[in-house]
């Protein structure tokens, strides 16, 4: 047990911190998601620079263009990114989900075609999993895929797809056969988002921003070569994608929470430093942040030892989302009357946006209810609830 950086990690952190100081575009510090065209333009350039400096694909194997570093480097990277209030690489779906899935299940020609452009941010990916009728119950997806001659034909609708409005490619989970066991009969494809018949409609959130989208597929022809895994074997491939979503996800969340707690402390010092109730709640949020941070370090040690993410990923997501909701609400209380006005870019507007945005946290990337089911069933071994 040693909670200090080793010499290599410390050197990596120092270099990265200095690099971030001189490279994060001013327009992206403390940004609010990728919904504006101006942010997107900056984001593309930012992501290319991250890639050129060698910070994309830190944990990817060297043979696929990654840095082949242990997970702890990704953890340091996410901590430092948060510390600098810099946004992540625009291609997080490609880097964190599609890429590792292709590395695990793809053919050599697919690896050659896709992986380098994910790293370089030349191609942005999105995820086509959820549907209007399939949220938590992912295996019930109804978007149809059928093999017609030398290509697949895709028809259906996906929803909650972040980055779809700018994506070049989509990882799609669709139904190729109606079977008794619904996990069978699913097929996993890579779809070119520029194909005829693909239509993306942004969804406006309660914040007014549009970070995610609906995707409509109407007779979209997908080359047979774009199959990942086997026809009917899509569920297994999808599980790889989702397990990677949890890898070092906790570090990104704790990083975001670290920024939020720092800002909350500054706000409380400014406006409510003497209020005993506020002080108690600020201290609670600080303690929760430390608990999350050190739980991540324990998870990291396990990940490095076993290669597989443990249940701490679900713990981190569950607690982060609830902490962020509580914390932003506390900030709104401290801001008080002014929180009703969304003008400008001062504290009231910032916290109002954060508080509204936080309502999505307990829903996106696994609802709190599903996460509690996962913990109850897979960690505690309780009988299935359905």
């Amino acid at each position: 047990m040693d909670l200090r950086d080793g010499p290599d990690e410390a050197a990596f952190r120092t270099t990265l911190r200095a690099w971030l100081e001189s490279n994060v575009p001013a327009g992206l510090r403390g940004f609010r998601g990728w919904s504006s065209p101006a942010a997107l333009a900056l984001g593309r350039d930012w992501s290319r620079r991250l890639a050129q400096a060698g910070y994309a694909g830190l944990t990817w194997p060297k043979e696929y263009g990654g840095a082949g570093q242990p997970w702890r480097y990704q953890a340091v990277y996410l901590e430092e990114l948060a510390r600098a209030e810099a946004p992540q690489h625009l291609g997080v779906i490609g880097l964190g989900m599609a890429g590792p899935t292709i590395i695990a299940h793809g053919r050599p020609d697919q690896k050659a075609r896709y992986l380098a452009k994910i790293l370089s941010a030349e191609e942005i990916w999105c995820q086509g999993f959820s549907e209007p009728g399939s949220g938590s119950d992912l295996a019930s997806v109804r978007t149809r895929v059928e093999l017609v001659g030398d290509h697949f034909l895709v028809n259906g609708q996906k929803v909650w797809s972040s980055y779809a409005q700018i994506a070049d490619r989509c990882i799609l989970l669709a139904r190729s056969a109606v079977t008794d066991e619904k996990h069978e009969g699913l097929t996993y494809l890579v779809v070119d988002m520029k194909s005829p018949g693909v239509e993306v409609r942004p969804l406006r959130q309660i914040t007014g921003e549009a970070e995610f989208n609906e995707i409509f597929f109407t007779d979209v022809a997908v080359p047979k070569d774009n199959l990942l895994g086997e026809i009917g074997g899509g569920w297994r491939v999808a599980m790889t994608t989702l397990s990677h979503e949890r890898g070092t996800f906790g570090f990104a969340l704790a990083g975001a929470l670290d920024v939020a707690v720092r800002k909350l402390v500054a706000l409380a010092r400014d406006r409510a430093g003497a209020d005993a109730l506020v002080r108690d709640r600020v201290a609670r949020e600080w303690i929760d942040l430390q608990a999350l941070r050190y739980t991540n370090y324990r998870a990291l040690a396990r990940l490095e030892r076993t290669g597989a993410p443990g249940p701490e990923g679900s713990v981190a997501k569950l607690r982060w989302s609830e902490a962020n909701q509580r914390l932003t609400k506390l900030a709104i209380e401290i801001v008080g009357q002014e929180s009703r006005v969304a003008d400008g870019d001062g504290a009231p507007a910032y916290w109002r946006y954060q508080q509204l945005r936080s309502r999505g946290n307990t829903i996106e990337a696994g609802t709190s209810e599903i996460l509690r089911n996962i913990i109850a069933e897979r960690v505690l071994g309780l009988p299935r609830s359905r």
Partner: protein
Amino acid sequence: MDFSFTPEQDQLRTQARSFLEKRFPATRLAEIAMSEDGWDRASWPELARLGWTGASIAEAQGGAGLSFVEEAIVFEELGRALYAGPYFSTIALALPALACAPDLLARVASGGLTATLASAVEARRAGDRWLLRGDGDLVPDAGWVDAFVVEARGPDGIGLYLAERHDARPLIRVFDTVDTTRRLGRVTFEDDSARLLAAPPAAAEIIGRTRRRALAALALEAVGIAGFALAVGVEHAKSRQQFGRPIGTYQAVSHKLADTYVETELARSLAYWAAWCIAEDDAQAELAASAAKAYAAEAAVAACERAMQVHGGMGFTWDHPLHRYYKRALGIESFDRSGAAHRADIAQVLLDG
């Protein structure tokens, strides 16, 4: 950065868990808790033989020369087993002061000395001895230990003294304590003679270190308690059938247990962090110990309360072991200061610094 235990440390945990489960099954625990004496004296030499009393004591004094991280593992497992005996008192509360005298350390390592921490009103010099006067209240394990480390005000300020027990001195009154596995007492010194362990100002540093160790040790015990409450809650939810199904299939039940799991893991992370900070004398040790104790105590109380609810009426009975764990958790929560008071300390660092 490596937040994991070594294979030797994992082995210590496995050894501790299996020894304690065999040595103190639920029936034995109930006997001890309801006995006049309140602990199983024969267990102390066994703990010493396992190397637990000397874990952090140097090899020269008969210890294992390890650190607070090893002691942390023992604290967590003793909490899980609800061990009734002066390990917390001797190792967390008394050891930092006893470390001023190598002969005392050797006695602790060999199992020949148990001690706790008390305070007296005054210490005055009488030739080459010191005499203590005054009451020390709410002293853990007061009725069981061989000696008292005493904080008392002397002519130059607060010092630390050692008063060994002999001929029914000092006077001890053991209270009817809610947690009968850790009984509290009042120790009355009436010019009882004592040995100076640390004079001011060195004593102040030891007192600070002792408090951090105590907070972290209790956080670790609390994690052990929460772990026990979770395990029995899960076991019951799997086996108890109602409406033709195990009650664990109902999310109103399973989600409660999932919340206990989450809070236990978070408390564990804080407690291990605090343990490491103490072992390394890290600058954050005080903050970490405070945060860990505040969080873990509340998590253990909540874990027991949820487990009782999941058990239904059975969880509310005297015969079920849960109430003993619950009472220990409540005792931990009110030791030193409440969670709110710890949070006030933390807020001071965050907001007034």
